[in-house]
């Protein structure tokens, strides 16, 4: 990625977005740590964690927008990749607890002692090292997406069929992770984390750092997506989205393009999950629920698919609304709101907030240029009808 490519790929909206995220990533942690508690400008710690969660959701939304908005693959199972990344991080955090657990076993996490495991299952090896866990955060979702995509795209499973089998995939994982003998804590999942890289997960400083890291990850993901979609590869992806058969007949290996972007997107979702877990403090099988994945798709639809900025914005807006609704007396009506949001956005706002705004902006810009041209022409003493000629 050369600097030239970077600047070319950034329009005004993207620049504003990056500036805002960077400012949040710097200012919110600083205000939380440096200003005295209770002061007007100080951001309380719980808000830092909450907004950190939104930022992780924004990364997930970006990953969905990359495949849905630019390649037309509607995955209803992206929550699975998010959760797998989360589980990989959760396993590292579990191993860090060491002998501080309730049962004080230095190797086995509490739930394994409780379930009478005699030794650590093989797939838990290596998760005591951060670098290994971090690698797994990328590899596990990436590998699953690669295998799944390789099978699906090669046999040309497209459209709603793909959506339905991705949903079946996350549902199968949901059922599997609910099982106690699967070795991931069953129903309760992984929780009671203590340390990450030697820092206390609960401490204000750690939370602020995690928030800053999440913002950094969001910026990085955004730049990667931007680079992909504005490259030649991105143009092919858009061609596949708009006319898959035609792209294939023109000689492009459609399945390879799709597979690449699907795997990349799954890795991004995994990173989002990995950053999400230490900030929320728990990961359990309900993250695999098909409903979660579909909800993530609606964030993208609300913000505007195929705009990247819109996806991130949609994730934050919808989740902010969710938090404010579900915590108040309006809680029973949240599902009505969410349901109506799905219906209204698809019916009335198919381009989403950012897409609609962009369309309006372009239109008014055109109008303005036309007006300036007209007035300039009038000053020159040339009448309009002649322009038309």
């Amino acid at each position, binding site marked *: 990625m050369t600097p030239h490519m970077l600047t070319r790929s950034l329009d005004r909206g993207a620049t504003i977005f990056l500036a805002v995220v960077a400012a949040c990533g710097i200012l919110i942690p600083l205000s939380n740590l440096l200003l005295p508690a209770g002061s007007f400008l100080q951001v309380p710690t719980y808000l830092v964690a909450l907004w950190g969660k939104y930022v992780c959701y924004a990364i997930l939304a970006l990953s969905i927008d990359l495949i849905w908005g630019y390649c037309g693959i*509607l995955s*209803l199972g992206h929550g699975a990749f998010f959760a797998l990344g989360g589980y990989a991080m959760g396993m590292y955090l579990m191993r860090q607890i060491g002998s501080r657990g309730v049962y004080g076993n230095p190797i086995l996490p509490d739930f394994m002692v409780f379930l009478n495991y005699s030794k650590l299952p093989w797939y838990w090896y290596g998760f005591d090292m951060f670098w290994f866990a971090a690698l797994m955060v990328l590899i596990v979702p990436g590998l699953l997406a690669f295998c*799944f995509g390789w*099978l*699906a795209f*090669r*046999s*040309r*499973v497209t*459209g*709603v*069929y793909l*959506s*339905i*089998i991705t*949903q*079946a*995939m996350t*549902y*199968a994982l949901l*059922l*599997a992770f*609910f*099982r106690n003998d699967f070795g991931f804590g069953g129903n309760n999942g992984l929780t009671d984390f203590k340390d990450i890289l030697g820092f206390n997960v609960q401490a204000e400083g750690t939370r602020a750092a995690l928030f800053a890291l999440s913002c950094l990850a969001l910026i990085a993901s955004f730049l990667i997506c931007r680079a992909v979609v504005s490259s030649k590869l991105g143009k092919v992806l858009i061609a596949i989205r708009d006319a898959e*058969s035609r792209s294939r007949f023109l000689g492009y290996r459609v399945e390879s393009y799709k597979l690449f972007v699907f795997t990349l997107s799954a890795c991004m979702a995994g990173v989002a999950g990995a950053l999400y877990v230490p900030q929320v403090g728990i990961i359990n099988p309900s993250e695999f629920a*098909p409903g979660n994945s*579909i909800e993530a*798709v*609606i964030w993208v*639809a609300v913000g505007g698919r195929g705009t990247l900025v819109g996806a991130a914005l949609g994730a934050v807006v919808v989740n902010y609304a969710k938090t404010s609704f579900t915590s108040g007396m309006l809680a*029973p*009506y949240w*599902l*009505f709101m*969410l*349901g*109506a*949001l*799905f*219906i209204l*956005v*698809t*019916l009335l706002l*198919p381009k989403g907030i950012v897409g609609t705004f962009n369309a309006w902006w372009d239109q008014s810009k055109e109008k303005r240029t036309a007006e300036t041209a007209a007035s300039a022409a009038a000053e020159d003493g040339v009448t309009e009808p002649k322009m038309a000629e």
Partner: protein
Amino acid sequence: MPANLSARLYSLLLSLFLIAFALPAFAGPFEDAVAKFANDDYSDTEEAIGVVASSGNPLAFPIISALQDGRLMADPDSKKVYVTGADGKSIDAATGQPVASVPDSASAVRLNNRLRRSVDAAVGGLTLMSPDVTTRIQAAQSVFKSHEESALDAVNTALAKETNKTAKAALGDARAAIILFKPDATEVEKLEAVATIKAHGDQEALAMLTGMGDQPASVTKAAASAIASIQSSLALWSTVQNAWYGLSLGSVLLLAAIGLAITFGVMGVINMAHGEMVMIGAYTTFVVQEVIRTRYPGLFDYSLLIAAPLAFLVAGALGVVIERSIIRFLYGRPLETLLATWGLSLVLQQAVRTMFGPTNREVGNPSWMSGAFELGQITITYNRLWILVFTLAVFAILLAMLRYTALGLEMRAVTQNRRMAASMGIATSRVDALTFGLGSGIAGIAGVALSQIDNVSPNLGQSYIIDSFMVVVFGGVGNLWGTLVGAFTLGIANKFLEPVAGAVLGKIAILVLIILFIQKRPRGLFALKGRAVEA
């Protein structure tokens, strides 16, 4: 067990009643034996049990069963023995005369484990002569299980008198079981017993033959071949059982998926709110039953017959409204339809939750749907059987409708080539609305049936939606036969995997298999051919 107990109490009361009229008023071995209960000596008690049980006296059963339940009171001073009833009234055990009260010095006759066994056998032997056939069969079965040697005489006597065929067979089995475990039985008798038990052929017979201990060589050999034959017949029956469970699950899947197959197949619309239509059908049943319960309790057995057309109308009307207000703006955008209908499903769920509460609602089974019957070694419940029949009926009606009615013809035309159909003057938008209504209405009917076997809660639909999609995708879009084959294949495969892999792993395996299957045949088992494929 409670049934057994109430049968015993019933016969106790019956005998008490008989005693009041026909009193055996002579002193003899029976009275002497009864008096021995008061000696508080285990060997005397055992002797007394033997004499009383074989006396043929109508008091024998009340006495022995009272002894079993600790209600036989003995007064060591006067050597009098009393039977106290469950209702607090007491009789003199020797004469059957009612007594005002049992003296304070009387205490319950004590038993040890050995005695308890002979008491059980005696009770079994006594009930073998009961006038009630069901009681006799139950008694014979309990003797078969306990194969207590002391019951042999009673079984032989009963066998000689028995006229009922089933009871006779049960007694024969009981006799064989006793002989098998009797140390001094001859080899010929034992071989005969093995043959009888082999014919009995269930899990208990298998356990009996495997656990019979040291036997003559010829008997062991016969038993080994009997075990092998029982095992293979049991394996066959368990296959039949799995197949039945599979058919039952398949019928449920078919019922849930059939409406989806119509909307998805004909219109290419992914209706994620389909499960909620099923739920609405189930709640319609609930409301119908509530009205019947409060207003016309006599109609309860007809509640499902009333609910089915109502559910069809409610869900169907809702379907038409949904199609007119949402879906029709989204034709040609299947992914958006998917999202909008998902939103709709959230709204419907929450609406039902607000109206009826989040907890499960109770929907009762009419009398003709409760209970079960035995077929060989398997049990078939009536509700599952009716649901299978009902599903096939719905399927047949739907098939006939598509084949022979004008709407069916129009629907098929639109499925095959929408634009051509429109050119021929078919009002495609009207067909779309009616098709969506039909699909939703059938989901509503499915809800009526599912309310009989599942919890009626706002989440009812969600648990079926993924399975229904799997059925449709597996079977192939736009073909009802595909849906039928898909549903029964998945149902049966699921039930055959369950005993091997466990319920959850079996389900996961099925999902993975479908995902792999889709790779091989991306358009399902019965794929549409021609231009419709690219639509």
